[in-house]
């Protein structure tokens, strides 16, 4: 593989793959580098039912379609790589992988997305897959007639809490605030479900068990009271953190670690664009990521073409 590309896209979720499709379709020599499996957060979605023009599709299938489309138009994709360092300053950008390979480009699109937040409390790593889960559709049926906790207060948490009542004997929603961030219809549906009860203003402080999870310690944030609750399973849905650590001190980030972009998806560095869940924005949907990826690709293509003209 040639080591210089007109554009390198970092990330192969909805935003990165869309950028790859647009760029390669426009005959811009493009490489997509991706840590982990192609598809990003899209793959973590069981069913996508509000993607225009598509009645219903699994996240996995939509990701596969996008990947094949990008490849068909000529984009190169390297997945499951590990990035050692990125030098986005200057006219030639470079990306070094941990295996020693170095790729350079005229422009960069950062579409590194986000990852599910974890609680980061004792026992969480130990009991992952042995009582602690981050995917209701994957693991719900392991908790038939069991007592479970759902942690979180956003749309995902309440939607999944309701879905998990299909399996569990009871679902306790544990949320750190005295109110939910979810849309009202999700809150109403959860409140009307007789299997769901709520512990508000509280946080899980520790996961307890031997070979598998058997209990949790819960701290009331207002009173400071610590209680222990016997439980068979815990599902964690507390939002996403942007994958932007490697850009700290290099690109302008906001207080949440999200990349600040303008309407063209340009970052604080010339020739560096960003799109998808890694940027500062309000709504995080596959469709908004696709829109971001489109804008970033068109902006990057324009940047590359102007660069060519200036050198001609």
């Amino acid at each position: 593989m040639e080591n210089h590309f007109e554009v390198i896209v970092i990330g192969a979720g909805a935003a990165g793959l869309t950028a790859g499709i647009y760029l390669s379709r426009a005959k811009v020599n493009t490489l997509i580098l991706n840590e982990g499996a192609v598809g990003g957060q899209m793959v973590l979605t069981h069913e996508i039912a509000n993607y225009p023009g598509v009645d219903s599709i699994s996240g996995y299938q939509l990701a596969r379609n996008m990947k094949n489309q990008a490849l068909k138009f000529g984009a190169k994709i390297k997945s499951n790589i590990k990035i050692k360092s990125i030098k986005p300053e200057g006219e030639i950008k470079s990306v070094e992988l941990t295996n020693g390979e170095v790729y350079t480009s005229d422009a960069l699109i950062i579409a590194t997305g986000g990852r599910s937040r974890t609680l980061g409390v004792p026992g969480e790593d130990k009991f992952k897959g042995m009582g602690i889960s981050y995917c209701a559709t994957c693991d719900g049926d392991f908790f038939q007639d069991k007592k479970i906790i759902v942690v979180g207060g956003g749309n995902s948490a309440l939607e999944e809490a309701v879905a998990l009542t299909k399996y569990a004997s009871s679902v306790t929603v544990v949320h750190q605030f005295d109110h939910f961030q979810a849309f009202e219809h999700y809150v109403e549906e959860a409140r009307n479900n007789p299997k769901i009860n709520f512990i508000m203003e509280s946080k899980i402080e520790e996961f307890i068990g031997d070979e598998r999870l058997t209990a949790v310690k819960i701290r009331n944030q207002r009173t400071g009271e610590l209680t222990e609750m016997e439980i068979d399973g815990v599902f964690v849905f507390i939002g996403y953190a942007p994958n932007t650590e490697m850009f700290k001190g290099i690109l302008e980030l906001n207080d949440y670690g999200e990349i600040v972009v303008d309407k063209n998806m340009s970052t604080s560095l010339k020739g560096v664009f960003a799109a998808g869940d890694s940027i500062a924005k309000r709504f995080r949907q596959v469709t908004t990521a696709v829109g971001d990826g489109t804008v970033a690709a068109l902006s990057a293509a324009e940047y590359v073409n102007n660069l060519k003209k200036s050198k001609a």
Partner: protein
Amino acid sequence: MLHTNLTHVLSKDEHSKLLQENENVMICCGRMGPMCIPVYEAMEELENEYPHVKFADMEFDLPDASVIRDLPECRNFAGLPFVVYYKNGKVVKATSSIQTRDQITAILDEHFGKNN
């Protein structure tokens, strides 16, 4: 059948034959779900790097997948996929839920050795 490029194990007999014919075996038993797909993809890529390991998948909901679901090493598992590593037909390691390529590689290196 799972939509992967891995060797598919469809029955207890095929599972048994696979273990008899291969010294080092990694089987990912799951569905085409969010926690399973990253593991299959890592395995597909690692196939070329570890020719001394046989990489296979098995659909979790097949009745014959009980050969994996009912293993003592998996009795506390409550997260897909169940991944089992066999050496000379014996289980040497089993994991539950999503694993990164780095985590898988560490297990392969520890139990089956690096590719020379």
